[in-house]
Protein backbone atom coordinates (compact mmCIF):
# COMPACT_ATOMS: atom_id res chain seq x y z
CA UNK A 1 0.00 0.00 0.00
CA UNK A 2 1.26 3.44 -0.90
CA UNK A 3 1.95 5.74 1.99
CA UNK A 4 0.44 9.20 1.75
CA UNK A 5 3.63 10.80 2.99
CA UNK A 6 6.99 9.17 3.33
CA UNK A 7 9.85 11.33 4.56
CA UNK A 8 13.33 10.06 5.26
CA UNK A 9 16.16 12.18 6.57
CA UNK A 10 14.84 15.47 5.22
CA UNK A 11 17.24 18.34 5.63
CA UNK A 12 16.76 21.96 4.71
CA UNK A 13 18.90 24.92 5.69
CA UNK A 14 18.22 28.58 5.23
CA UNK A 15 21.63 30.17 5.40
CA UNK A 16 23.01 29.11 8.76
CA UNK A 17 19.66 28.16 10.20
CA UNK A 18 18.76 24.49 9.95
CA UNK A 19 15.00 24.26 9.54
CA UNK A 20 14.78 20.51 8.94
CA UNK A 21 17.45 18.33 10.47
CA UNK A 22 17.01 14.79 9.18
CA UNK A 23 13.26 14.67 9.68
CA UNK A 24 11.61 11.30 9.03
CA UNK A 25 7.96 10.37 9.21
CA UNK A 26 5.39 8.16 7.59
CA UNK A 27 1.71 8.80 7.09
CA UNK A 28 -0.62 6.03 6.02
CA UNK A 29 -3.59 6.82 3.86
CA UNK A 30 -6.96 7.28 5.49
CA UNK A 31 -5.52 9.36 8.29
CA UNK A 32 -5.59 12.84 9.65
CA UNK A 33 -2.13 13.68 10.86
CA UNK A 34 -1.25 16.70 12.90
CA UNK A 35 2.30 17.95 12.90
CA UNK A 36 2.79 19.69 16.17
CA UNK A 37 5.67 21.80 17.32
CA UNK A 38 6.67 25.13 18.80
CA UNK A 39 7.39 28.15 16.61
CA UNK A 40 10.50 27.52 14.56
CA UNK A 41 10.31 23.74 14.93
CA UNK A 42 10.25 23.28 11.16
CA UNK A 43 6.51 22.72 10.67
CA UNK A 44 6.09 25.25 7.91
CA UNK A 45 9.28 24.16 6.17
CA UNK A 46 8.04 20.59 6.20
CA UNK A 47 4.64 21.56 4.82
CA UNK A 48 6.22 23.70 2.12
CA UNK A 49 8.38 20.74 1.13
CA UNK A 50 5.36 18.46 0.88
CA UNK A 51 3.60 21.11 -1.22
CA UNK A 52 6.60 21.28 -3.61
CA UNK A 53 7.17 24.94 -2.75
CA UNK A 54 10.70 24.34 -1.55
CA UNK A 55 13.17 21.57 -2.22
CA UNK A 56 14.81 19.84 0.69
CA UNK A 57 18.56 19.53 0.21
CA UNK A 58 18.94 16.01 1.48
CA UNK A 59 16.73 13.05 2.14
CA UNK A 60 13.75 11.60 0.39
CA UNK A 61 10.17 12.83 0.36
CA UNK A 62 7.32 11.07 -1.39
CA UNK A 63 3.73 12.23 -1.51
CA UNK A 64 1.18 9.60 -2.60
CA UNK A 65 4.10 7.68 -4.02
CA UNK A 66 5.49 10.56 -6.08
CA UNK A 67 8.89 12.05 -5.41
CA UNK A 68 8.55 15.77 -4.66
CA UNK A 69 11.68 16.65 -6.57
CA UNK A 70 11.46 14.46 -9.65
CA UNK A 71 7.68 14.24 -9.94
CA UNK A 72 6.59 17.62 -8.57
CA UNK A 73 3.95 17.98 -11.26
CA UNK A 74 2.29 14.69 -10.22
CA UNK A 75 2.42 15.69 -6.55
CA UNK A 76 0.70 18.98 -7.41
CA UNK A 77 -2.15 17.11 -9.05
CA UNK A 78 -3.03 15.22 -5.88
CA UNK A 79 -2.62 17.88 -3.19
CA UNK A 80 -4.60 20.88 -2.08
CA UNK A 81 -2.92 23.56 0.02
CA UNK A 82 -4.44 26.02 2.43
CA UNK A 83 -1.84 28.15 4.11
CA UNK A 84 -1.47 30.39 7.10
CA UNK A 85 -2.77 33.31 5.11
CA UNK A 86 -6.07 33.17 3.33
CA UNK A 87 -4.75 33.03 -0.22
CA UNK A 88 -7.91 34.29 -1.79
CA UNK A 89 -8.32 37.39 -3.90
CA UNK A 90 -9.99 40.17 -1.94
CA UNK A 91 -11.31 41.91 -5.03
CA UNK A 92 -13.09 38.83 -6.33
CA UNK A 93 -16.27 37.33 -4.93
CA UNK A 94 -16.17 34.02 -3.09
CA UNK A 95 -17.62 32.22 -6.07
CA UNK A 96 -15.22 33.86 -8.51
CA UNK A 97 -12.27 32.77 -6.39
CA UNK A 98 -13.38 29.15 -6.38
CA UNK A 99 -14.18 29.10 -10.08
CA UNK A 100 -10.80 30.63 -10.89
CA UNK A 101 -8.90 27.96 -8.96
CA UNK A 102 -11.02 25.17 -10.47
CA UNK A 103 -10.46 26.49 -13.99
CA UNK A 104 -6.72 26.71 -13.37
CA UNK A 105 -6.87 23.03 -12.51
CA UNK A 106 -8.09 22.51 -16.06
CA UNK A 107 -11.79 22.08 -15.34
CA UNK A 108 -14.32 23.25 -17.90
CA UNK A 109 -16.35 26.35 -17.06
CA UNK A 110 -19.34 24.16 -16.29
CA UNK A 111 -17.45 21.74 -14.06
CA UNK A 112 -15.77 24.59 -12.27
CA UNK A 113 -19.09 26.28 -11.58
CA UNK A 114 -20.61 23.06 -10.23
CA UNK A 115 -17.64 22.32 -7.99
CA UNK A 116 -17.56 25.89 -6.71
CA UNK A 117 -21.25 25.64 -5.86
CA UNK A 118 -20.71 22.37 -4.00
CA UNK A 119 -17.88 23.87 -1.96
CA UNK A 120 -19.95 26.95 -1.13
CA UNK A 121 -22.74 24.72 0.15
CA UNK A 122 -20.35 22.52 2.10
CA UNK A 123 -19.03 25.53 4.00
CA UNK A 124 -22.25 27.45 4.34
CA UNK A 125 -21.02 30.27 2.16
CA UNK A 126 -23.85 30.27 -0.37
CA UNK A 127 -25.37 33.51 0.86
CA UNK A 128 -22.05 35.33 0.80
CA UNK A 129 -20.96 33.73 -2.47
CA UNK A 130 -21.40 36.79 -4.64
CA UNK A 131 -19.98 39.32 -2.22
CA UNK A 132 -16.42 40.50 -2.64
CA UNK A 133 -14.06 38.68 -0.29
CA UNK A 134 -12.85 41.99 1.18
CA UNK A 135 -16.24 42.18 2.95
CA UNK A 136 -15.76 38.72 4.55
CA UNK A 137 -14.79 38.11 8.17
CA UNK A 138 -11.47 36.43 8.93
CA UNK A 139 -13.18 33.11 9.58
CA UNK A 140 -15.10 33.23 6.32
CA UNK A 141 -11.92 33.95 4.40
CA UNK A 142 -10.21 30.94 5.91
CA UNK A 143 -13.18 28.79 5.04
CA UNK A 144 -13.14 30.03 1.49
CA UNK A 145 -9.41 29.40 1.34
CA UNK A 146 -9.99 25.89 2.61
CA UNK A 147 -12.69 25.52 -0.03
CA UNK A 148 -10.36 26.71 -2.78
CA UNK A 149 -7.97 23.91 -1.90
CA UNK A 150 -10.82 21.44 -2.33
CA UNK A 151 -12.26 22.24 -5.73
CA UNK A 152 -9.71 19.96 -7.35
CA UNK A 153 -10.78 17.09 -5.05
CA UNK A 154 -7.28 16.45 -3.75
CA UNK A 155 -6.27 13.16 -2.21
CA UNK A 156 -4.20 14.96 0.38
CA UNK A 157 -5.26 18.23 1.89
CA UNK A 158 -2.46 20.23 3.48
CA UNK A 159 -3.46 22.74 6.12
CA UNK A 160 -0.74 24.96 7.52
CA UNK A 161 -1.93 26.36 10.85
CA UNK A 162 -5.49 26.70 9.60
CA UNK A 163 -6.89 28.42 12.67
CA UNK A 164 -3.96 30.61 13.71
CA UNK A 165 -5.25 34.11 14.32
CA UNK A 166 -8.93 33.21 14.38
CA UNK A 167 -11.32 34.02 17.19
CA UNK A 168 -12.57 31.01 19.22
CA UNK A 169 -15.96 30.93 17.52
CA UNK A 170 -14.42 30.86 14.03
CA UNK A 171 -11.98 28.16 15.15
CA UNK A 172 -14.83 25.88 16.19
CA UNK A 173 -16.55 26.60 12.91
CA UNK A 174 -13.46 25.74 10.90
CA UNK A 175 -12.89 22.59 12.93
CA UNK A 176 -16.39 21.46 12.01
CA UNK A 177 -15.62 22.12 8.37
CA UNK A 178 -12.39 20.13 8.54
CA UNK A 179 -14.12 17.27 10.32
CA UNK A 180 -16.72 17.17 7.58
CA UNK A 181 -13.96 16.72 5.02
CA UNK A 182 -12.34 13.99 7.01
CA UNK A 183 -15.65 12.13 7.08
CA UNK A 184 -15.68 12.23 3.30
CA UNK A 185 -12.37 10.45 3.31
CA UNK A 186 -9.89 13.19 2.43
CA UNK A 187 -6.47 12.62 3.95
CA UNK A 188 -5.34 15.65 5.88
CA UNK A 189 -1.93 16.84 6.94
CA UNK A 190 -2.32 19.59 9.48
CA UNK A 191 0.20 21.71 11.29
CA UNK A 192 -0.72 23.46 14.46
CA UNK A 193 0.69 24.91 17.62
CA UNK A 194 -2.54 24.24 19.46
CA UNK A 195 -2.71 20.90 21.18
CA UNK A 196 -6.46 20.99 21.57
CA UNK A 197 -6.68 21.32 17.81
CA UNK A 198 -4.50 18.28 17.24
CA UNK A 199 -6.37 16.34 19.91
CA UNK A 200 -9.71 17.18 18.37
CA UNK A 201 -8.95 16.65 14.69
CA UNK A 202 -6.13 14.18 14.31
CA UNK A 203 -5.96 10.47 14.77
CA UNK A 204 -2.20 10.67 14.63
CA UNK A 205 0.13 13.28 15.98
CA UNK A 206 3.73 13.86 15.06
CA UNK A 207 5.64 16.10 17.41
CA UNK A 208 8.59 17.84 15.85
CA UNK A 209 11.16 20.04 17.47
CA UNK A 210 14.27 21.64 15.98
CA UNK A 211 13.69 20.02 12.62
CA UNK A 212 13.37 16.47 13.88
CA UNK A 213 10.59 14.07 14.78
CA UNK A 214 10.50 13.81 18.56
CA UNK A 215 7.56 11.47 18.95
CA UNK A 216 4.58 10.19 17.05
CA UNK A 217 1.47 8.18 17.72
CA UNK A 218 -2.18 8.51 18.57
CA UNK A 219 -3.05 11.09 21.23
CA UNK A 220 -3.63 8.23 23.70
CA UNK A 221 -0.28 6.61 22.92
CA UNK A 222 1.54 9.88 23.37
CA UNK A 223 -0.17 10.51 26.69
CA UNK A 224 0.87 7.08 27.90
CA UNK A 225 4.47 7.91 27.09
CA UNK A 226 4.76 10.24 30.06
CA UNK A 227 3.10 7.96 32.55
CA UNK A 228 -0.36 6.66 33.09
CA UNK A 229 -2.16 8.85 35.56
CA UNK A 230 -2.04 12.33 36.93
CA UNK A 231 -3.27 13.14 40.40
CA UNK A 232 -4.52 16.68 40.44
CA UNK A 233 -5.50 18.56 43.58
CA UNK A 234 -7.37 21.83 43.50
CA UNK A 235 -7.23 23.75 46.80
CA UNK A 236 -9.63 26.45 47.95
CA UNK A 237 -7.04 28.66 49.55
CA UNK A 238 -3.80 29.67 47.93
CA UNK A 239 -2.05 29.43 51.30
CA UNK A 240 -2.72 25.70 51.34
CA UNK A 241 -0.72 25.03 48.16
CA UNK A 242 2.57 24.35 50.02
CA UNK A 243 0.81 21.87 52.37
CA UNK A 244 -0.40 19.72 49.53
CA UNK A 245 2.81 20.11 47.55
CA UNK A 246 4.85 18.93 50.53
CA UNK A 247 2.61 15.96 51.18
CA UNK A 248 2.81 14.89 47.55
CA UNK A 249 6.57 15.40 47.35
CA UNK A 250 6.98 12.86 50.15
CA UNK A 251 4.75 10.36 48.38
CA UNK A 252 5.29 11.08 44.71
CA UNK A 253 7.69 9.70 42.15
CA UNK A 254 8.44 13.14 40.73
CA UNK A 255 8.25 16.73 41.90
CA UNK A 256 4.70 18.06 41.70
CA UNK A 257 3.76 20.76 39.18
CA UNK A 258 2.26 23.81 40.83
CA UNK A 259 -0.04 26.23 39.08
CA UNK A 260 -0.46 29.18 41.45
CA UNK A 261 -3.03 30.97 39.35
CA UNK A 262 -5.56 28.14 39.29
CA UNK A 263 -4.49 26.80 42.72
CA UNK A 264 -3.81 23.36 41.30
CA UNK A 265 -1.11 20.89 42.21
CA UNK A 266 -0.55 17.89 39.96
CA UNK A 267 1.80 14.96 40.03
CA UNK A 268 2.29 12.03 37.68
CA UNK A 269 2.49 8.36 38.58
CA UNK A 270 3.63 5.28 36.76
CA UNK A 271 0.95 3.39 34.97
CA UNK A 272 -1.07 1.15 37.24
CA UNK A 273 0.37 2.49 40.46
CA UNK A 274 -2.84 1.99 42.39
CA UNK A 275 -1.09 1.85 45.75
CA UNK A 276 0.75 5.08 45.02
CA UNK A 277 -2.53 6.81 44.27
CA UNK A 278 -4.03 5.68 47.57
CA UNK A 279 -0.95 6.85 49.44
CA UNK A 280 -1.10 10.13 47.60
CA UNK A 281 -4.76 10.65 48.43
CA UNK A 282 -4.16 9.81 52.06
CA UNK A 283 -1.22 12.22 52.26
CA UNK A 284 -3.39 14.98 50.83
CA UNK A 285 -6.15 14.26 53.36
CA UNK A 286 -3.67 14.33 56.23
CA UNK A 287 -2.10 17.60 55.06
CA UNK A 288 -5.05 19.53 56.45
CA UNK A 289 -5.58 21.56 53.29
CA UNK A 290 -9.13 22.51 52.32
CA UNK A 291 -9.81 21.01 48.93
CA UNK A 292 -11.98 22.37 46.16
CA UNK A 293 -11.58 19.27 44.05
CA UNK A 294 -9.40 16.25 43.60
CA UNK A 295 -9.13 14.14 40.48
CA UNK A 296 -7.20 11.34 38.88
CA UNK A 297 -6.94 11.98 35.18
CA UNK A 298 -5.12 11.22 31.95
CA UNK A 299 -2.21 13.51 31.12
CA UNK A 300 -3.06 16.31 28.68
CA UNK A 301 -1.19 16.68 25.42
CA UNK A 302 0.21 19.89 26.84
CA UNK A 303 1.98 17.86 29.48
CA UNK A 304 3.21 15.39 26.85
CA UNK A 305 4.49 18.24 24.77
CA UNK A 306 6.22 19.87 27.69
CA UNK A 307 7.84 16.59 28.66
CA UNK A 308 9.05 15.84 25.13
CA UNK A 309 10.22 19.25 23.96
CA UNK A 310 10.87 21.08 27.18
CA UNK A 311 8.63 23.88 25.98
CA UNK A 312 5.11 24.94 26.62
CA UNK A 313 2.88 25.31 23.61
CA UNK A 314 1.04 28.51 22.92
CA UNK A 315 -2.24 26.84 23.79
CA UNK A 316 -0.86 26.04 27.22
CA UNK A 317 -0.25 29.72 27.76
CA UNK A 318 -3.45 31.08 26.32
CA UNK A 319 -6.02 29.15 24.44
CA UNK A 320 -7.02 30.51 21.09
CA UNK A 321 -5.10 33.72 21.11
CA UNK A 322 -3.71 35.01 17.89
CA UNK A 323 -0.11 34.24 17.16
CA UNK A 324 0.93 35.33 13.73
CA UNK A 325 4.52 34.24 13.84
CA UNK A 326 5.49 31.72 11.25
CA UNK A 327 7.50 28.68 12.08
Amino acid sequence: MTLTIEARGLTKRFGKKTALDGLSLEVESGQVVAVLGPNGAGKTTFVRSVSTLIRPEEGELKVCGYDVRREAESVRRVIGLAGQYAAVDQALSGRENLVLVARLFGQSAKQAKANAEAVLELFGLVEAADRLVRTYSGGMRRKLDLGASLVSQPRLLILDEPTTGLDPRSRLDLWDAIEALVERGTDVLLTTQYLDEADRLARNIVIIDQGRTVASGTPAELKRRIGGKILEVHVRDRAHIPLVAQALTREGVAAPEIDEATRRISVGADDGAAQWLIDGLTAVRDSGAVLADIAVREPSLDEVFLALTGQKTSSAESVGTATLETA
Partner: protein
Amino acid sequence: MTTLTPTIRTGRAGIVTGTGLLAKRTTVTFLRRPELVVLSLVQMSAIMLTFRFIFGGAIGTAHGLPYVDFSVPGFITAGVLFQTLGTAIGIAEDMEQGFIDRLRSMPFSTAAMLTGRVVADTGILAIVLAVTTAVGFAVGFRLQASVLGGLEAFGLCLVFGLAFSWLFIAVGLLAGNVKAAQGVSMIVFIVTFASSAYVPTQTMPGWLRAFAENQPVTAMANAVRSLTLGSHSQAFLGHGPGYFVIRSLFWAGGILVAFSVISVAKFRRAAG
Protein backbone atom coordinates in the same frame (compact mmCIF):
# COMPACT_ATOMS: atom_id res chain seq x y z
CA MET B 1 -23.80 16.20 3.39
CA THR B 2 -23.11 17.69 0.03
CA THR B 3 -20.85 15.83 -2.29
CA LEU B 4 -18.75 17.36 -4.96
CA THR B 5 -19.91 16.41 -8.41
CA PRO B 6 -17.85 13.47 -9.56
CA THR B 7 -15.37 14.69 -12.09
CA ILE B 8 -12.42 13.10 -13.73
CA ARG B 9 -9.43 13.99 -11.60
CA THR B 10 -8.47 17.40 -12.82
CA GLY B 11 -5.42 18.09 -14.88
CA ARG B 12 -4.07 21.53 -15.54
CA ALA B 13 -4.93 24.53 -17.60
CA GLY B 14 -2.62 25.02 -20.56
CA ILE B 15 -0.47 28.10 -20.80
CA VAL B 16 -2.94 29.91 -23.06
CA THR B 17 -5.98 29.20 -20.88
CA GLY B 18 -3.94 29.91 -17.77
CA THR B 19 -2.69 33.22 -19.14
CA GLY B 20 -6.24 34.16 -20.11
CA LEU B 21 -7.70 33.28 -16.72
CA LEU B 22 -5.05 35.12 -14.76
CA ALA B 23 -5.11 38.11 -17.11
CA LYS B 24 -8.84 38.35 -16.55
CA ARG B 25 -8.35 38.07 -12.79
CA THR B 26 -5.72 40.82 -12.75
CA THR B 27 -7.89 43.12 -14.87
CA VAL B 28 -11.04 42.56 -12.82
CA THR B 29 -9.08 43.05 -9.60
CA PHE B 30 -7.66 46.33 -10.91
CA LEU B 31 -11.01 47.69 -12.06
CA ARG B 32 -12.66 46.82 -8.74
CA ARG B 33 -10.17 48.88 -6.81
CA PRO B 34 -11.25 52.39 -7.68
CA GLU B 35 -8.37 53.84 -5.70
CA LEU B 36 -5.93 52.25 -8.18
CA VAL B 37 -7.86 53.37 -11.24
CA VAL B 38 -8.16 56.92 -9.96
CA LEU B 39 -4.54 57.02 -8.86
CA SER B 40 -3.35 55.90 -12.30
CA LEU B 41 -5.44 58.43 -14.16
CA VAL B 42 -5.12 61.37 -11.81
CA GLN B 43 -1.42 60.96 -11.16
CA MET B 44 -0.43 61.30 -14.80
CA SER B 45 -2.86 64.08 -15.56
CA ALA B 46 -1.81 66.02 -12.47
CA ILE B 47 1.88 65.82 -13.36
CA MET B 48 1.08 66.90 -16.89
CA LEU B 49 -1.04 69.86 -15.82
CA THR B 50 1.59 70.95 -13.30
CA PHE B 51 4.36 71.01 -15.84
CA ARG B 52 2.25 72.44 -18.63
CA PHE B 53 0.81 75.36 -16.71
CA ILE B 54 3.10 75.94 -13.73
CA PHE B 55 6.66 75.11 -14.79
CA GLY B 56 6.05 75.09 -18.53
CA GLY B 57 6.26 78.84 -18.99
CA ALA B 58 9.66 78.95 -17.35
CA ILE B 59 11.16 76.04 -19.26
CA GLY B 60 12.64 77.16 -22.53
CA THR B 61 12.99 74.90 -25.53
CA ALA B 62 14.89 75.83 -28.62
CA HIS B 63 14.22 75.77 -32.35
CA GLY B 64 10.69 77.06 -31.98
CA LEU B 65 9.37 73.88 -30.38
CA PRO B 66 6.65 74.86 -27.90
CA TYR B 67 7.08 73.24 -24.46
CA VAL B 68 3.70 71.59 -24.64
CA ASP B 69 4.71 69.74 -27.80
CA PHE B 70 8.05 68.84 -26.27
CA SER B 71 6.68 67.64 -22.98
CA VAL B 72 3.50 65.69 -23.71
CA PRO B 73 5.37 62.82 -25.46
CA GLY B 74 7.71 62.80 -22.45
CA PHE B 75 4.83 62.57 -19.98
CA ILE B 76 3.30 59.72 -21.89
CA THR B 77 6.63 57.87 -21.87
CA ALA B 78 7.13 58.47 -18.15
CA GLY B 79 3.53 57.39 -17.65
CA VAL B 80 4.49 53.96 -18.96
CA LEU B 81 6.90 53.57 -16.05
CA PHE B 82 4.56 54.92 -13.42
CA GLN B 83 1.78 52.64 -14.59
CA THR B 84 3.86 49.46 -14.91
CA LEU B 85 5.27 50.13 -11.44
CA GLY B 86 1.88 48.82 -10.32
CA THR B 87 2.93 45.40 -11.61
CA ALA B 88 5.65 45.20 -8.96
CA ILE B 89 3.18 46.08 -6.23
CA GLY B 90 0.59 43.61 -7.55
CA ILE B 91 3.12 40.77 -7.62
CA ALA B 92 4.42 41.64 -4.16
CA GLU B 93 0.85 41.67 -2.87
CA ASP B 94 0.19 38.23 -4.34
CA MET B 95 3.32 36.90 -2.69
CA GLU B 96 2.51 38.45 0.65
CA GLN B 97 -1.01 37.05 0.64
CA GLY B 98 -0.04 33.53 -0.37
CA PHE B 99 -1.76 33.62 -3.75
CA ILE B 100 1.49 32.82 -5.53
CA ASP B 101 2.17 29.92 -3.17
CA ARG B 102 -1.23 28.50 -3.98
CA LEU B 103 -0.56 28.72 -7.70
CA ARG B 104 2.87 27.21 -7.29
CA SER B 105 1.40 24.25 -5.42
CA MET B 106 -0.91 23.59 -8.37
CA PRO B 107 -0.10 21.59 -11.50
CA PHE B 108 0.18 24.73 -13.46
CA SER B 109 2.49 26.39 -15.91
CA THR B 110 4.65 28.78 -13.92
CA ALA B 111 5.00 31.00 -16.98
CA ALA B 112 1.23 31.55 -17.20
CA MET B 113 1.20 33.24 -13.81
CA LEU B 114 3.61 35.84 -15.14
CA THR B 115 2.35 36.10 -18.72
CA GLY B 116 -1.19 36.53 -17.42
CA ARG B 117 -0.05 39.48 -15.35
CA VAL B 118 1.92 41.02 -18.25
CA VAL B 119 -0.99 40.71 -20.68
CA ALA B 120 -3.41 42.30 -18.20
CA ASP B 121 -1.05 45.08 -17.21
CA THR B 122 -0.30 45.93 -20.83
CA GLY B 123 -4.05 46.11 -21.50
CA ILE B 124 -4.55 48.39 -18.50
CA LEU B 125 -1.60 50.46 -19.66
CA ALA B 126 -3.24 50.96 -23.07
CA ILE B 127 -6.34 52.42 -21.42
CA VAL B 128 -4.37 54.67 -19.06
CA LEU B 129 -2.17 55.90 -21.93
CA ALA B 130 -5.22 56.64 -24.05
CA VAL B 131 -6.61 58.83 -21.28
CA THR B 132 -3.23 60.48 -20.72
CA THR B 133 -2.99 61.18 -24.45
CA ALA B 134 -6.46 62.72 -24.44
CA VAL B 135 -5.42 65.01 -21.56
CA GLY B 136 -2.32 65.87 -23.60
CA PHE B 137 -4.44 67.00 -26.52
CA ALA B 138 -6.72 68.90 -24.17
CA VAL B 139 -3.84 70.98 -22.81
CA GLY B 140 -2.74 71.95 -26.30
CA PHE B 141 -0.55 69.21 -27.73
CA ARG B 142 -0.93 68.75 -31.47
CA LEU B 143 0.39 66.02 -33.75
CA GLN B 144 2.91 67.57 -36.13
CA ALA B 145 3.52 64.35 -38.03
CA SER B 146 1.09 61.90 -39.62
CA VAL B 147 -1.65 60.09 -37.73
CA LEU B 148 0.24 56.90 -38.54
CA GLY B 149 3.26 58.32 -36.72
CA GLY B 150 1.04 58.96 -33.71
CA LEU B 151 -0.24 55.40 -33.75
CA GLU B 152 3.28 54.07 -34.09
CA ALA B 153 4.28 56.10 -31.07
CA PHE B 154 1.36 54.68 -29.10
CA GLY B 155 2.32 51.14 -30.14
CA LEU B 156 5.91 51.80 -29.18
CA CYS B 157 4.76 52.87 -25.71
CA LEU B 158 2.97 49.55 -25.31
CA VAL B 159 6.18 47.76 -26.29
CA PHE B 160 8.03 49.72 -23.57
CA GLY B 161 5.23 48.82 -21.21
CA LEU B 162 5.59 45.14 -22.02
CA ALA B 163 9.34 45.31 -21.36
CA PHE B 164 8.94 47.27 -18.13
CA SER B 165 6.21 44.91 -16.90
CA TRP B 166 8.84 42.18 -16.87
CA LEU B 167 11.28 44.44 -15.10
CA PHE B 168 8.70 45.21 -12.43
CA ILE B 169 7.65 41.57 -12.10
CA ALA B 170 11.27 40.83 -11.21
CA VAL B 171 11.24 43.75 -8.76
CA GLY B 172 8.02 42.48 -7.16
CA LEU B 173 9.35 38.93 -6.81
CA LEU B 174 12.65 40.12 -5.38
CA ALA B 175 10.99 42.58 -3.02
CA GLY B 176 8.53 39.97 -1.74
CA ASN B 177 6.39 42.46 0.13
CA VAL B 178 4.39 45.52 -0.78
CA LYS B 179 6.38 48.03 1.26
CA ALA B 180 9.69 47.09 -0.34
CA ALA B 181 8.09 47.15 -3.77
CA GLN B 182 6.73 50.63 -3.14
CA GLY B 183 10.21 51.78 -2.21
CA VAL B 184 11.19 51.23 -5.81
CA SER B 185 8.91 54.06 -6.91
CA MET B 186 11.63 56.50 -5.79
CA ILE B 187 13.91 55.02 -8.44
CA VAL B 188 11.22 55.57 -11.05
CA PHE B 189 11.07 59.25 -10.10
CA ILE B 190 14.83 59.58 -10.41
CA VAL B 191 15.04 57.73 -13.71
CA THR B 192 12.23 59.76 -15.28
CA PHE B 193 13.48 63.14 -14.01
CA ALA B 194 17.06 62.44 -15.06
CA SER B 195 15.98 61.95 -18.63
CA SER B 196 14.64 64.05 -21.48
CA ALA B 197 11.07 63.14 -20.47
CA TYR B 198 10.21 66.46 -18.79
CA VAL B 199 12.99 68.85 -19.75
CA PRO B 200 15.68 68.99 -22.44
CA THR B 201 18.92 67.40 -21.29
CA GLN B 202 21.04 70.24 -22.72
CA THR B 203 20.80 72.29 -19.55
CA MET B 204 21.86 69.49 -17.17
CA PRO B 205 25.39 69.40 -15.73
CA GLY B 206 27.81 67.20 -17.69
CA TRP B 207 27.72 64.05 -15.55
CA LEU B 208 23.95 64.04 -15.26
CA ARG B 209 23.59 64.77 -18.94
CA ALA B 210 25.83 61.81 -19.76
CA PHE B 211 23.56 59.56 -17.71
CA ALA B 212 20.36 61.12 -19.01
CA GLU B 213 21.31 60.79 -22.65
CA ASN B 214 22.27 57.15 -22.35
CA GLN B 215 19.36 55.68 -20.47
CA PRO B 216 16.23 54.02 -21.85
CA VAL B 217 13.67 56.65 -20.82
CA THR B 218 15.43 59.32 -22.90
CA ALA B 219 15.65 57.06 -25.93
CA MET B 220 11.97 56.24 -25.58
CA ALA B 221 10.80 59.80 -24.94
CA ASN B 222 12.75 61.03 -27.95
CA ALA B 223 11.39 58.22 -30.11
CA VAL B 224 7.84 59.17 -29.19
CA ARG B 225 8.67 62.83 -29.88
CA SER B 226 10.14 62.24 -33.27
CA LEU B 227 7.25 60.01 -34.30
CA THR B 228 4.63 62.56 -33.24
CA LEU B 229 6.40 65.80 -34.10
CA GLY B 230 8.10 64.72 -37.33
CA SER B 231 10.55 67.10 -38.99
CA HIS B 232 9.50 69.72 -36.46
CA SER B 233 11.52 67.91 -33.82
CA GLN B 234 14.44 66.71 -35.90
CA ALA B 235 16.32 70.01 -35.71
CA PHE B 236 15.85 70.05 -31.98
CA LEU B 237 16.63 66.40 -31.21
CA GLY B 238 19.45 66.09 -33.70
CA HIS B 239 18.29 62.80 -35.18
CA GLY B 240 15.33 61.43 -37.09
CA PRO B 241 12.71 58.96 -35.83
CA GLY B 242 14.57 55.90 -37.12
CA TYR B 243 17.55 56.59 -34.86
CA PHE B 244 15.52 56.90 -31.68
CA VAL B 245 13.05 54.13 -32.47
CA ILE B 246 15.84 51.62 -33.07
CA ARG B 247 17.66 52.72 -29.92
CA SER B 248 14.58 52.37 -27.80
CA LEU B 249 13.65 49.02 -29.31
CA PHE B 250 17.11 47.79 -28.38
CA TRP B 251 16.54 48.97 -24.83
CA ALA B 252 13.09 47.40 -24.69
CA GLY B 253 14.37 44.12 -26.12
CA GLY B 254 17.26 44.02 -23.66
CA ILE B 255 15.05 44.76 -20.69
CA LEU B 256 12.47 42.23 -21.80
CA VAL B 257 14.95 39.39 -22.27
CA ALA B 258 17.00 40.09 -19.15
CA PHE B 259 14.11 40.52 -16.77
CA SER B 260 11.88 37.77 -18.12
CA VAL B 261 14.78 35.36 -17.57
CA ILE B 262 15.36 36.70 -14.05
CA SER B 263 11.65 36.63 -13.23
CA VAL B 264 11.03 33.09 -14.42
CA ALA B 265 14.13 31.81 -12.61
CA LYS B 266 13.17 33.61 -9.42
CA PHE B 267 9.59 32.44 -9.71
CA ARG B 268 10.57 28.80 -10.15
CA ARG B 269 12.76 28.84 -7.10
CA ALA B 270 10.47 31.35 -5.45
CA ALA B 271 10.51 32.15 -1.80
CA GLY B 272 12.42 28.99 -0.88
